């Protein structure tokens, strides 16, 4: 039937969805810097490079609210789905989105 065509990505199981606190974040170190995995109040998960587009602050350490995170260094708010800066800082930069899938309650991070 409709077999899903997957991008040529290698997926790595980095833990259970519930290992990330609600309205919180965990980080995954990689050879090219940390990845931040966020879990919002409604249980959705997102992954971004753990660098604020403003001055490189660790987004994984910010406060998660709605589908956004506020950087702990200078309070830029970043939209989790796109990595884009929000509000007055919109259009000024973007934290790259990292492929993330949930399968059977496990978090899979993608490497392209």
């Amino acid at each position, binding site marked *: 039937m409709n077999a899903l065509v997957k991008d040529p990505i290698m997926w790595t199981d980095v833990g259970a969805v*519930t290992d990330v606190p609600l309205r919180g974040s*965990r980080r995954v170190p*990689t050879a090219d810097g940390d990845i931040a995995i966020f879990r919002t109040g409604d249980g*959705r998960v997102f992954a971004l490079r753990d660098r604020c587009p403003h001055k490189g602050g660790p987004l994984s350490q910010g*406060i998660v*609210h709605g589908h956004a995170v506020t950087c702990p260094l200078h309070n830029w708010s970043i939209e989790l789905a796109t990595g884009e800066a929000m509000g007055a800082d919109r259009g000024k930069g973007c934290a790259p989105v990292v492929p993330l899938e949930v399968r059977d309650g496990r978090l899979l991070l993608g490497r392209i």
Partner: protein
Amino acid sequence: MTKERLVVIGNGMAGCRAVQEVLKRDPGRYDITIFGAEPRVNYDRIMLSPVLAGEKSFADIVINDEAWYADNGIDLRAGARVEVIDREARLVRAADGTEAPYDRLILATGSDPIRLPLPGADLAGVVTFRDLDDVEAMIAAAKPGAKAVVIGGGLLGIEAAYGLSKRGMGATVVHLMDVLMERQLDASAGFLLTEALAEKGVETVLEAQSEEILGANGRVSGLRLKDGRVLDCDLLVMAVGIRPNGTLAKAAELEVNRGVVVDDSLRTSDPAIYAIGECVEHRGQCYGLVAPIWEMCRTLGEALTDGEAAYEGSSLSTRLKVSGVDVFSAGKHLGGPGCEDIVFRDAGRGVYKRIVLEEGKVAGAVLFGDASDGGWYFDLMKSGEDVAAFRETLVFGQAATEGLRGLDPSAAVAAMADTAEVCGCNGVCKGEITAAITDQGLTTLESVRAVTKASASCGTCTPLVEKLLKLSLGAAFQVQTGPKPVCGCTHHGHDDVRRRILAEELKSIPAVMQALEWTTPDGCASCRPALNYYLVCAWPGDYRDDRQSRFVNERVHANIQKDGTYSVVPRMWGGVTSADELRAIADVVDKFDIPTVKVTGGQRIDLLGVKKDDLPAVWADLNAAGMVSGHAYAKGLRTVKTCVGTDWCRFGTQDSTGLGVRLEKFMWGSWSPAKVKLAVSGCPRNCAEATCKDIGVICVDSGYEIHVGGAAGLHIKGTEVLAKVATEDEAVWTICAVMQFYREDAWYLERVYKWMERIGLGAIKAAVEDPERRRALYDRFSYSQRFYRVDPWAERVAGRDAHEFNPLSRRMEFA
């Protein structure tokens, strides 16, 4: 001509409905045989919850009685479980040996409840919630006073627990996730559901992993959770989900994944065999709700009568069938990329609504407390109608929207009847307000509040009252700015929030957000830390600190630096240290390769550039040398700076070092609206610079001058003298009373000097000069300190919040 033979395996809702759909279109076309494993006629399985709750009887939920089968010439084989499908011979064979040949076969085998493979799962009294037998087993066990545990906080689990509670049992829902019905609800609605269930006698245990079912004499006696807790019970219900039943299909070598795979005309991999209902997997999706199954049956009815129809999958909506708890959920209720939320809360009625919009269309909804517009939102969602034209009133529902559509907001207000209620809290109608405005010449919101009480309580109707003022006065009306709202999530000011937390005994962030009708699902980075602090201050010992609402520094008990490393400042009481402490600090610096060591303005040593992963180990070493957190990161008591006083100084008048150490040992660990720094100088030469601190003490021969409201940061400000006291004890009492008054009265992030500017030195003096007030403030401070005077470093060295310091995974560290 002989009729074609249609055989249905499964006498449940899907199987019978499919037959009805066929009969409706072409009643004479088939000879029909239905096999059912249960020895009953077809009944409405989704109504089992009301049967369990005693709100309906079995007779009430029968869909097709025996007469229906007879009237339509259907051969019902109830109690005959089909064991074999012979695709070559095109016949099915039941366990009792009977056979039926078919031309077309429908599989409607439904699903099986998932049984968790826990130790003890085979004990008597462990049941699932799936069919009438389960319900009868539960009713039999439901003696008043007996206890039931339901594993699974989804739709079924909650309905089961509610039903058992109605039967007089004590019921507890144990849920793995942190939100009930997390597949349908967001955290706000989940919180309200937990509360509403508690009111109905159903307890909820969240984030609980079941480990073992305990038994005595072969019967269930309790459930042990992974964290060691044991919940006693006489009945244990597993309601953790369903699994499509594809056993028969698999044995017949049809294509089966999670469910029996079908195409858009509901045909399996054998063109003579169809499948519908919960046993089906269509486009990768399995369904467990009734609406999509009805849609499948319609399509199949067409397909079996040569009509043209394709099933293209279903949008889902859910309603909880618990009396008095109105819950609806549909579509992308959690939002997503490119979505926006409209949130409405009515604390008085316990209502929460969240409408999710995407590209100007309704994409999903969560309704709690008033789900009457659920159908309307679901229709808007399915039709994809552009709602931009009426998005302002969308959240108020269909009646409000249709009634006001096309009117501009002022015209809508003008069109309101004089008897229409504007202020629900105080029961004030439009007519009373307009009369007060014209008769008494009112021109401001405040005066309308004073005269009519409208908008004087919760404030939700403020915009409406303002529109009425504008309507009556025209250009003469200027919008008043009320107290500054805490943030964009609410129109309430800080004082309002603090007052209502106490008055209404609100003890969690979701409770505050609901009661004060927050307009976002879970606040923002401004209001959450403020609310968390207000709750910490209001309910010491009672409130469970929400770490996710704390700024990173207070979460990890260190100060984040520009490169993402942290700085660590151990406490040095009154600025006094020793050779042992300094040696331990030096060792830590060497061991962890800490790049910078700096002396601070508050007489402390700052270790800068510590890696986050190293923090607990650094703290462990400092703890071992007797040092605790210096709270250099806290909106709380930071440092008490001292001079050497009478111990060494030839000018010293009192033991300023001793007083500083005493103050710090009593006050450390306390949280406050913003940072608080103290200093004690032993004489008016003021070497400890006490007159630019939040609270300062200048010792004089006759006693102690207590100063307040200094600053030497963004602004430079000398202190004002608050009081002069004769003894050290009195100095401590007064200072703690000021601290507590500040903790209870100031707005979050408002420094002491700003607070003093706002309320006036006189108000602070009045609080500490009245001996009873001073004593009460001191007592409340001292009570609060019983809970907060603990070393957060030691707690984390012992393993608390380990996830904060460890990466989630190291599997991607090396590419």
